[in-house]
């Protein structure tokens, strides 16, 4: 050691200097990345480009899709699609179709359509540009036409949705200002402008011949005549039975998807309330409703004779629904993100779809499995791009703060660095990496997608290792100028905190792993989100039942323990009989006796009250022994001291023995409480709608037991963790006399 003199300006050893430079470079680069990302710069995590719309042209067998990055994608679909390749691996290993990229739009392409003669492809982008691509000489010629031909550009607010008429001659648009316009595609003239002051601006639809235009208006649907611009019809929900207000027919949230039926008499609408409603346009009445999606409906499409509707939703699923009755006949599950468009085709008995996950998928109707998949662009799911850039911003700032702290030799900077380079990579890099390796793609492509994050994670781990190396850590954990005693104290504290952070990191890592494993259970996340509120509504009841039962149990246990310790034979007998009877019979049987037996004596209990009584009495018996042991653990000296001071037996028990006994029994009682919280689910047999009961009910109804029970399990766990925290605090408080 050359710097034992402990001067303020001692030079940093090489190792530390190198470390500081590494942290500085990392932080600055992170910040630069985040800044250029948010400014729309070119360097970004490879993410897929969301696909918004698809169209199929049977003459040339061309399939077109509009993408978020402004590209129109065009595939040559082979005449035969093999349906033998069934496993995910087989699909992943398939030869991709011949694909053409038509660049030219500067904004996401929201709508694509082929003209009926198949000669042209028309695309609409969010910024209002409508382009025509001449395909009369084949797809590759369309590319050679370069930018395509801009038919016209719609001025004003960005478009949210567009819809072509069946013959492709007219286009309806709805913009951010909620104004609906209908355009003649050949001239680019606005045929009608329907000013609307309403809030809804999400969805617009044209009927087959382009004479009627419909748009969502809150939970209702407004239909206008294109020629006159006059409103012709308004579809609103209503009560099936007005008097008792039973069975609401219609939507109760915003309409997010619309489709006119091919017969011109019907209309289908989807909503963020997850329902699909079929309307009769003659009467304005609801013909049927369909529930089964678990999230906002994004797209609806009638088949040629109007018997079925294909629906897509934010729950990543596509469903085939019979318009009569609203029953689902097929569901296509596999997209990793919201489905934006689904259509019948491209060959017989198949369905095709595009999604926010950046894939085009073709499904076989019979088996409802993917038979072909196109990833026009490989990458992470779009969210991860945003998550990473936010993390880069945060870690860049934290890194600089940390650096400043290291320079000033502040201990917190060490801890900050630990947290940043330990927890950050686990969560921000670990989750997307886990996800990538579950994508249905060949491994080499998974690696090709994942490598930037792998490199980043490796770099963070390197930083972490260097940061925590003993000689480095010693440099900044304690200020060299401080007296030895202070340095030792600081060192001890740092070791403790470091231990805490490391064990926290282990927890987080295990959670991430657990989460990733659960993801592979093929869980229906949208389903879980949809029913989470319903299941959680039982959580309050679970807490109430457990809390009330534990209070009752503690009172009974206290009395029981006094009885067991009493020299009074009656008290002793009653108490030991109670313990023996209750501990000797199953809890479930006891619950039944409370609920079904007592009414025979004329005592009718509410299910909730019966449940609380059953649980409280049961746990009281077990806890009696805990209390007895706790009371007996108090030494004779305490009684003598209290008696010698003139305190009565009751005073001694209340003021001297009980508080000390409580301290002893809190850990085992906490244990019992945790067990009880989970046993409280047994009251479901009485039809108390608590957490487990709801989970079971919903799970059985939808054949999704795993999902609902996982929600319940997660809630119990969270509750237990919270309770353990409180118990720890209580124990600390009660043990304040014992601390050394």
């Amino acid at each position, binding site marked *: 050691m050359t710097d034992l003199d402990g001067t303020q300006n001692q030079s940093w050893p090489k190792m530390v200097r190198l470390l500081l430079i590494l942290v500085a470079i990392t932080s600055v680069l992170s910040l630069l990345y985040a800044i250029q990302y948010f400014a729309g710069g070119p360097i970004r995590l490879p993410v897929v480009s969301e696909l918004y719309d698809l169209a199929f042209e049977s003459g040339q067998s061309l399939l077109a899709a509009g993408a978020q990055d402004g590209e129109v994608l065009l595939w040559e679909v082979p005449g035969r699609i093999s349906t033998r390749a069934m496993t995910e691996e087989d699909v992943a290993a398939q030869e991709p179709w011949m694909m053409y990229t038509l660049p030219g739009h500067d904004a996401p392409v929201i709508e694509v359509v082929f003209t009926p003669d198949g000669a042209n492809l028309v695309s609409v982008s969010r910024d209002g540009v409508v382009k025509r691509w001449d395909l009369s000489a084949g797809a590759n010629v369309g590319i050679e036409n370069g930018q395509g031909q801009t038919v016209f550009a719609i001025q004003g607010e960005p478009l949210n949705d567009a819809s072509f008429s069946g013959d492709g001659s007219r286009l309806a648009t709805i913009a951010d200002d909620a104004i609906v316009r209908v355009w003649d595609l050949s001239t680019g003239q606005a045929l009608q402008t329907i000013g609307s002051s309403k809030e809804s601006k999400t969805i617009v639809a044209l009927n087959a011949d382009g004479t009627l235009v419909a748009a969502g208006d809150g939970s209702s649907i407004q239909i206008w005549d294109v020629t006159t611009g006059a409103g012709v019809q308004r579809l609103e929900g209503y009560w099936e039975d007005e008097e008792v207000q039973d069975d609401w027919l219609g939507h109760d949230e915003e309409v997010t998807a619309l489709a006119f039926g091919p017969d011109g008499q019907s209309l289908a609408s989807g909503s963020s309330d997850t329902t699909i409603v079929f309307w009769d346009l003659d009467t304005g009445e609801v013909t049927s409703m369909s529930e089964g999606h678990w999230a906002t409906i994004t797209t609806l499409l009638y088949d040629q004779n109007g018997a079925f509707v294909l629906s897509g939703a934010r729950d990543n699923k596509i469903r085939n629904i019979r318009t009569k009755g609203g029953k689902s006949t097929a569901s296509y599950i596999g997209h990793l993100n919201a489905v934006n468009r689904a259509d019948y085709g491209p060959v017989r008995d198949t369905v095709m779809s595009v999604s926010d996950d950046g894939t085009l998928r073709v499904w076989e109707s019979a088996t409802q499995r993917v038979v072909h998949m196109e990833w026009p662009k490989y990458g992470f799911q779009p969210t991860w791009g945003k998550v990473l850039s936010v993390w880069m911003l945060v870690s860049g700032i934290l890194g600089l703060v940390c650096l400043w702290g290291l320079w000033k030799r502040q201990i917190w900077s060490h801890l900050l660095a630990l947290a940043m380079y330990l927890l950050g990579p686990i969560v921000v890099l670990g989750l997307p990496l886990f996800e990538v390796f579950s994508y249905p793609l060949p491994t080499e492509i998974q690696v090709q997608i994942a490598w930037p994050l792998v490199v980043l994670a490796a770099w963070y781990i390197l930083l972490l290792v260097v940061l925590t190396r003993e000689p480095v850590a010693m440099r900044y954990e304690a200020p060299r100028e401080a007296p030895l005693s202070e340095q030792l104290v600081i060192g001890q504290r740092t070791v403790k905190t470091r231990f805490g952070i490391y064990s926290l990191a282990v927890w987080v890592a295990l959670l991430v792993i657990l989460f990733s494993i659960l993801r592979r259970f093929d869980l229906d996340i949208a389903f879980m989100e949809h029913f989470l509120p319903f299941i959680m509504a039982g959580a309050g009841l679970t807490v109430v039942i457990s809390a009330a039962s534990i209070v009752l149990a503690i009172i009974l246990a206290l009395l029981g323990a006094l009885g067991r310790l009493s020299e009074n034979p009656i008290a002793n007998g009653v108490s030991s009989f109670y313990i023996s009877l209750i501990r000797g019979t199953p809890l479930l049987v006891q619950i039944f006796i409370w609920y079904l037996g007592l009414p025979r004596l004329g005592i009718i209990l509410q299910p909730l009250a019966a449940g609380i009584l059953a649980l409280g009495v049961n746990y009281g018996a077990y806890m009696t022994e805990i209390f007895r042991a706790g009371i007996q653990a108090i030494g004779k000296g*305490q009684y003598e*001291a209290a*008696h*010698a*001071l*003139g305190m009565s037996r009751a005073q001694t028990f209340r003021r001297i023995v009980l508080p000390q006994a409580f*301290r002893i029994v809190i850990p085992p009682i906490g244990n019992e409480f945790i067990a009880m919280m989970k046993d409280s689910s047994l009251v479901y047999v009485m039809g108390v709608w608590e957490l487990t009961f709801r989970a079971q009910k919903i799970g059985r109804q939808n054949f999704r037991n795993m999902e609902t029970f996982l929600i319940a399990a997660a809630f119990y766990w969270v509750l237990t963790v919270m309770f353990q925290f409180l118990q720890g605090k209580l124990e600390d408080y009660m043990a304040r*006399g*014992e601390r050394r």
Partner: protein
Amino acid sequence: MTGPIIKVRGLHKYFGPLHVIQGVDLDVAPTEVVVIIGPSGGGKSTFLRCLNFLEEPSAGTIEIDNVMIKAREPAGQQRRHIREIRQKAGMVFQQFNLFPHMTALGNVIEAPLIVKSMSKSEATAKGEELLDWVGLSDKRDEFPSRLSGGQQQRVAIARALAMEPQIMLFDEPTSALDPELIGEVVEVMERLAREGMTMIVVTHEIHFAQDVADRVILMADGGWVEMAPPEELFTKPKEERTRQFLSHIL
């Protein structure tokens, strides 16, 4: 008051078949300090604990400050008398027996609050005064586990004094202490004696007996062997048994 404040007549105590105290009498005058010494198992502690009925005597009468209890009186009447006696007789234990869940001050004011229904402010003022008197005013908010043995015993003395007893019973108050801590407790006891407290002390501290006691009793085999002022008992003991005992300890 002129008569004895403690009057014990014909006290017997059996533990099962074991005859631990074999009929002893004792009168203690107000402000008198009586020290009981003697070999282990001689019945000293039992005698002391019988005085405030922590052990129930098998036969005999005990009268403290005009409250008299006969052994095997009817329970209800006896219980009332016992509580009266216990409030008149403070006791200090070998193992201190402080309440571990209360601070030093909490220990001192507990009984006045609960038994005497004293107001909190009054009890606190008195408690602080007592802690100051035993030299521990700076420890008022410490829990017993943070105090040394000597400090704990001094808190225990303050706790007993808080009930304003007429007499104080000390049951080997220094036996559980490290040698260097004995002094601080003895000093408090000496101060208490000087201030005129009537005390019965069971102890092995011969110096305390010599310096402070008005009377020393040698107890062995459940009875008094010899009772005399200290200068007499320690220098010219009459009984052979006394000489034998003193030769062991001096």
